[in-house]
């Protein structure tokens, strides 16, 4: 029933992933599954996960994002998280949630620019 809530769009060599504002754990698990599958099928070089719609980010979601990024790296791809809300960033910092070495960008535009720059 949640299938339609996550969108994974391929733009040239990049997958753009968007999530609904308040994803539950099941949906977050699906997110990982789908992104990796589509990455495998599409032979994309990188993934941009746009979380600009997300107002509340819990530790499970944060953990899954980091985990997925690591898996993408293992498959030879690059991950950029874009559009994090200021309130989400404040909470994440206060909770001590770390996103490891994942690259972050202000919005999808700049994330695409960065992806392109790294392909050259």
């Amino acid at each position, binding site marked *: 029933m949640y299938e339609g809530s996550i969108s994974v769009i391929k733009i040239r060599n990049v997958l753009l992933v968007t999530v609904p504002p308040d994803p539950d754990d099941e949906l977050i698990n699906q997110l990982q599954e789908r992104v990796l599958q589509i990455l495998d099928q599409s032979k994309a070089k990188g993934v941009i996960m746009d979380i600009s719609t997300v107002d509340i980010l819990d530790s499970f979601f944060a953990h899954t994002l980091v985990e997925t990024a690591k898996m993408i790296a293992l498959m030879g791809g690059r991950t*950029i*998280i*874009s*559009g*994090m*809300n*200021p*309130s*989400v*960033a*404040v909470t*994440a*910092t*206060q909770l001590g949630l*770390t*996103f490891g070495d994942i*690259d*972050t*960008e*202000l*919005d999808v535009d*700049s*994330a695409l620019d960065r992806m392109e720059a790294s392909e050259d």
Partner: protein
Amino acid sequence: MITISVKEWERRKHFVQFEEEDITRLKELLPVVEKQVDKVVEQLYENFEAIPELSRILHAEEGRLEKLKRMQRAYFLQLFEGDYGSDYLNNRLKVGMAHHRINLGVDWYLGAYSMYIRLVMPIILDHYKKDPAKGQAAFASAIKIIHLDQDVAISTYLSAREEVIAEQSEEILELSTPVVQLWDGIVAAPIIGTLDSQRTQLFMERLLQTIVDTKSPVALVDITGVPAIDTATAQHLIDTINAVKLLGSTVVITGVSPSIAQTLVHLGIDLSDILTRSSLAEGLKVALKQLNLVMTTKGA
């Protein structure tokens, strides 16, 4: 506005040992003071008017003097009317607020009260001149209620001041964390004073919001105005920087003075992952470089 609960009022009355017999004694004096009230009030205001500062306040608006005299008369009589419950308390609170409104300082208030006592004392002692012991007791009762009045008045003064202080602290908090856009894609935030957790919260929220609103990849946080840095402040800075990173933006800490650099190293605070520069100007150069911008002299 200040309120004193009835319970608190009773506690204060109990402390000055204001008891039933005081009420009886004061009530007994009512017919005596009623005859003298006009004289006392006139004398009091004659004294006030002799002082230029007070005279200015008394004549600040048309009819104020007459109004004040009327209020003074009622106030004086109420001291002896025998009802010292919540109505009395509320009336006294209003008197305190009125003094505050016309900007009459607590020093004038207390000074005036001393005149008051000197005018009331002979009336009471004169009335009981055949029974000096009773006169003394009645005077003591008057002193108690007068003291309680002063107590309430000073409480209102203090609370009015505290309100002002609270408002100002809030304003300072607002003023002290500006975040400004310096260039397309560059925001700057000068920090003045120390960063406590409350300020950090406000500062962080503002900085992050401005970064998102202006889509700025670089933020310059200037600590020239931070007199000293401790581990807590440093941790707050690091938290802020981490939050900015999550947004996809970079922070450059600027204005790192020699003494702050020394403190940071001595405290063992590791800022090696963070871009730091000694001045805001140097920080701006770093920011421009990151944005692939070049500034040149015209015609050069």
